[in-house]
């Protein structure tokens, strides 16, 4: 499961929805894998407005990955400054290091095995073979 997906998921228990601590879910005992994908700069730019940045930083820290900057990058931050030696103005803009880091974290880093824990109720959701299980026992629905 991609870390970008985690940015859209919350505790499935109804009474947790109103609590800010039910998001993000906290990875525990996570086994990560890298699934390489081509970087798409336009796509990265367009998902910036969708990100819950502070919560993403929490998850990244908890996974022991390199800390993200305190404020969300701007679209301009994702484009490498054009080198004065490159004369071709027609070529597509190149991704900056920030864009490459973000792509690595959001798109390529996946939780293969582990648990996702709600910060409000403590319920643990298992991730097995990359599929997160959000089904609740009948008494919690």
């Amino acid at each position, binding site marked *: 499961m991609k870390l970008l997906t985690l*940015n859209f998921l919350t505790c499935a228990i109804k009474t947790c929805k109103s609590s800010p601590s039910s998001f993000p879910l906290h990875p525990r005992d996570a086994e990560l894998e890298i699934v390489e994908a081509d970087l798409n700069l336009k796509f990265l730019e367009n998902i910036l407005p969708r990100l819950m940045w502070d919560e993403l930083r929490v998850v990244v820290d908890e996974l022991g990955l390199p800390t993200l900057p305190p404020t969300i990058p701007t679209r301009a931050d994702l484009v490498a400054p054009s080198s004065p030696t490159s004369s071709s103005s027609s070529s597509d803009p190149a991704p900056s290091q920030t864009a490459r880091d973000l792509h690595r974290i959001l798109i390529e880093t996946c939780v293969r095995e582990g648990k996702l824990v709600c910060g409000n109720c403590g319920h643990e959701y298992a991730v097995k073979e990359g599929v997160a299980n959000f089904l609740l026992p009948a008494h919690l629905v």
Partner: protein
Amino acid sequence: MLPTPSTSHVCFDRVYEPAEDSYLLLDTLSSASETSFLHGQFSTSPAAAEGSPLVLEVGVGSGVVLAFVAANAGTLFGRDDILTIGTDLNRFACEAAAQTVQKAVATAPTRFLDVVNGDLASSVRPHSIDVLIFNPPYVPAELPDYSHHEAYNEPLSAGKSTTFEQDSYLLELSYAGGPDGMVVTRRMLEQLPTILSSTRGVAYLLLCAQNKPEVVKQEIRAWGQGWMAETVGSSGKKAGWEKLQIIRIWRANTSILDSISSHNP
């Protein structure tokens, strides 16, 4: 006509096989009237600036519908940068659907997030979904005995195969909808206003005649706050309960209503 994504890798003994209802969703979503609506909602309106639209299919099954949407994003939405996510109670469907969508967007893998093993949209962050698609278990038939779920939903260990009872149960999840075929759909409708984006959210729901679609639409309109429900696609030549339709559920002129209320506190 846009191509139908391949589901040749899916084992239909325990995952719902694409059928008339699935194809009605494909035809409706790619019809001239719906692509024009979706372009308006996500390409030309001011809400387009809110970033990539997130499409959720609930009960994704084989994944054929979500894969179709992901693969044809440009035609349907007027933009290529959409995100797709699926949920299903059946973990075998989750695995199959993930493969279906990945194959369909092999050249644009960023359009696919994941398929989550969950109930309806209960694990999705409130107001994060721009387009919700649901082909529910709509057949008026006794609900499955969910007490089997945990045992029947376990990943298979190497060399093991599913039993006939397990396969029957997993397929029942995809079609059996209780009285009027509406038990699961009603639970989904209850979640809808909190799941959909408040500025540009829209849902496509498939109903059969026995679900009493006219009543369902009236109930949605009665939510107030600009909620609308209209039939935007139908199939089934003969009369009878199997006649199918797609209703679109959305909030009309939300941006106008919001600007009015912000000017008149």
